[in-house]
């Protein structure tokens, strides 16, 4: 899927300025980023990102490889500290809401213990066993609770990782390409769980390259290009009328550099 005119797109239109996609600060804000920049080894990877959103549901972060999606997510979740700028989640500084956040990584990180051992490690100590078993059932892993976690298939491992994340009862759930290269059944289960969680009032922030999945799940979309947010709109708008040429090219399957 090589681009027909990748560089022309870049030259012809300037990225949107941040002011266009900003909404006004509000007491009910779930997400509030102001001037977030990240510089690593002298290289600025995230440029002056400001995003405000009161939207519940699922926010999708899209963009080409290397655009800074994972870095932005890690900054939001507090795994990375931005070089400058401020991040607020649920109206409070990100680190204060740490216990209300959970994350599922692209490559599931499972402890060297049983399936159940992985759940009890993360779940609050008071979690009753029935809840744990019920969660295993929801991710279609019941009966595997005593199996070593790391011998599960890739799809099973990611389902377990999601189950573990959900057991911490997060208010915000970060998912970094959780279904990349998984079997369709696992993708289905994971998508269903995310939808159920969202229905329960969990805010999920999601990275995906799968446009079909994005359309199924996303309520709003943040589009990143070269470390800058160039677009933040509702999903409906983004997929039908993308504002920037980069987003248009990305959705068309063109190479955007």
């Amino acid at each position: 899927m090589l681009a027909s005119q990748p560089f022309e797109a870049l030259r012809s239109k300037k990225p949107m300025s941040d002011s266009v996609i900003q909404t006004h600060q509000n007491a009910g804000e779930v997400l509030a980023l102001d001037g977030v920049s990240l510089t690593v080894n002298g290289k600025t990877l995230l440029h002056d990102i400001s995003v405000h959103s009161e939207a519940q549901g699922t926010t999708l972060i899209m963009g080409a490889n290397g655009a800074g999606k994972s870095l932005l997510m890690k900054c939001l979740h507090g795994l990375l500290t931005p070089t400058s700028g401020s991040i607020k989640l649920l109206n409070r500084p990100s680190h204060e809401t740490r216990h209300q956040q959970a994350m599922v990584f692209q490559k599931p990180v499972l402890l060297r213990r049983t399936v159940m051992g992985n759940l009890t490690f993360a779940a609050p100590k008071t979690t009753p066993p029935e809840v744990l078993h019920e969660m295993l059932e929801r991710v279609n892993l019941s009966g595997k609770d005593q199996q070593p976690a790391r011998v599960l298939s890739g799809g099973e491992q990611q389902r377990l990782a999601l189950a573990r994340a959900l057991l911490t009862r997060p208010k915000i759930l970060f998912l970094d390409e959780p279904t990349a290269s998984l079997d369709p059944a696992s993708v289905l289960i994971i998508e269903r769980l995310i939808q159920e969680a969202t229905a329960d009032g969990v805010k999920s922030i999601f990275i995906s390259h799968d446009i079909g999945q994005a359309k199924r799940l996303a309520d709003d979309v943040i589009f990143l290009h070269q470390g800058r947010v160039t677009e933040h709109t509702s999903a409906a708008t983004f997929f039908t009328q993308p504002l920037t040429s980069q987003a248009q090219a990305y959705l068309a399957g063109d190479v955007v550099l």
Partner: protein
Amino acid sequence: MLFDAFSQAVALIMSGDPELFEILWLSIQVSTSALAISVILALPIGTVLAISEFPGKRLCVTVLNSLMGLPPVVVGLLVYLMLSRSGPLGVLGLLYTPTAMVIAQVVLITPIIAALAYQVMDDLHREYRELFQSLGIDSIRAIPTYLWDARYSLVTSILAGFGRAISEVGAVIIVGGNIDHLTRVMTTAIALETSKGELAIALALGIILLMLALLVNAGVTTVRSIALKKAYV
């Protein structure tokens, strides 16, 4: 000579020679004591070094890796100078005792176990760091988790330390003195028999020591295969 040594080794074991078992038992006692102390010292060192960030960390790792190659004779000499009656710890009267041998072996194998543990922990930390950060696990809880999750790899590191301890002669002969019925262990007995020209007996003792090493290694292999089956390595 080899066949001779083998039949002597078998005969020695079969005869239940009390002197052989005294020496073998002291070897095991000294080296397991040294191992126990080294593990208590080395695992926290390796773990803390792996999971913490501080200026000079790389220097520490380099020093630790270099210490792995400490020649036993040098360790023996250093411990001798410390424990000698005219040395700083001379008042303890520990020179030429099994305790002195334990101390020498601790000095010898603690860096080995710590450096190997550091490698294991560093790999594990790279894998787990973001998950733990995400789950809000502090280092008080992270350290036992790392130790537990690295248990199979650590067993291998620890047994490597044991192998080094039980097979070295340079340090224990200096600080132990190879005193009959007091500080004579397998390796110093081998050195003594060699110097008496009793090469077959020396080799027979060597074969018995080798059998012990084989047992230990069989243990390592079993542990590893269990771990592999569970994908716990």
